[in-house]
């Protein structure tokens, strides 16, 4: 068994029937998913599966993580397990690729953190995460009627053209700002917490954007919303771009509370926390 490691997905409140719910699940590398529980106390469980040590040893992992296909496969497997369990109970997701030597080591970590885990699970209970992204799309705004360039000397025509483009851009960013304020208002009304993610740029974002409409992502936030407020929150969010040309608001979710697993101020090396 020494060639297997224990991959941990999440801490869960071990409600009745959870073991059965976990049993048919398949995790990373299609391995069966199990529940590691505390000795003598089955209130909390760590959702785990076994992975090949050769893939998850430090050096191998380092290389794998640079391989987008491998990363995607693991990320989707990780998410699949968490999403399935989130339908049954409150889930405290762990960061991708949290790996232990064996189940016993994982149990030690679970027991050592039980108070903190229980507190966080209580805080997240009955709430889900929604992602809200705002895009600015200056090219989507109908262009102002062009004045025949012949009426102007070339230099002035050029400058005027530039000014017009700039003014469309400014208008769109102002509109995006307005949409952002509406979303924030919806958040204050219905959500219990918010986390800002870095705006999505780069090749992974472009790959995602090429399928859908493009535009520049200017807001990428996550909101923690009580289940009974989700409809209201979403209704407000989906109307946030109403009447605003060149602005698109996209909601994703519901997600397990990934972005809220670590309480504010206890950042464990997140993007924000990593910067002084």
């Amino acid at each position, binding site marked *: 068994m020494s060639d297997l*490691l224990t991959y941990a997905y999440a801490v869960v409140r071990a409600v009745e029937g959870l073991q059965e719910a976990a049993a*048919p*699940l*398949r995790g990373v590398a299609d391995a069966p998913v199990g529940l590691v529980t505390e000795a003598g106390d089955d209130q909390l469980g760590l959702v785990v599966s076994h992975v090949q*040590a050769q893939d*998850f040893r*430090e050096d191998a*992992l380092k290389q794998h*993580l*640079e391989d987008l296909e491998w*990363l995607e496969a693991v*990320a989707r497997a*990780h*998410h*699949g397990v968490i999403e399935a369990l989130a339908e049954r109970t409150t889930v*405290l*997701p*762990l*960061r*991708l*690729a*949290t*790996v*232990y*030597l064996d189940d016993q080591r*994982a149990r030690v*970590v679970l027991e050592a*953190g039980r108070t903190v885990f229980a507190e966080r699970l209580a805080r997240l209970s009955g709430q889900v*995460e929604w992602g809200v992204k705002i895009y*600015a799309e200056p090219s989507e705004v109908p262009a102002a009627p062009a004045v025949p360039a012949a009426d102007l000397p070339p230099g002035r025509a050029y400058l005027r053209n530039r000014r017009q483009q700039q003014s469309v851009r400014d208008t769109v960013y102002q509109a995006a*700002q307005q949409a*952002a*304020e509406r979303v*924030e208002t919806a958040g204050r009304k219905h959500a219990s917490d918010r986390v800002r*993610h*870095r*705006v*999505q740029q*780069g*090749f*992974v974002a472009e790959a*995602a954007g090429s399928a859908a409409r493009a535009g*520049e*992502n*200017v*807001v*990428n936030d*996550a909101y923690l919303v009580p289940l009974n407020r989700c409809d209201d929150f979403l209704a407000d969010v989906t109307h946030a771009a109403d009447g605003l040309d060149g602005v698109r608001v996209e909601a*994703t979710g519901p*997600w397990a509370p*990934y*972005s*809220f*697993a*670590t309480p504010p101020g206890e950042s464990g*090396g*997140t*993007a924000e926390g*990593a*910067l002084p």
Partner: protein
Amino acid sequence: MSTPDPPSEAERLPQRQVALIDLLDRLLTGGVVLTGDVVLSIADIDLVRVSLRALIVSISEQNPSPWTSTGPLQGGDHDSRR
């Protein structure tokens, strides 16, 4: 042992296919960071995370968005860290 209807595509498909970028936002910066086991606690895991994040967001590091919000929960300066 084996149920008549083993879990497969059919059971997993109802999940909507989430965008990888949205997933990575959450899995690489969200989630509880537990002190890993010997295997991963060799300090380098942080480097892995950092280099990985750099791979994904390198463009945004160098080209901060022209967008600056004046929302109440963030500063209105041009610092890309916001």
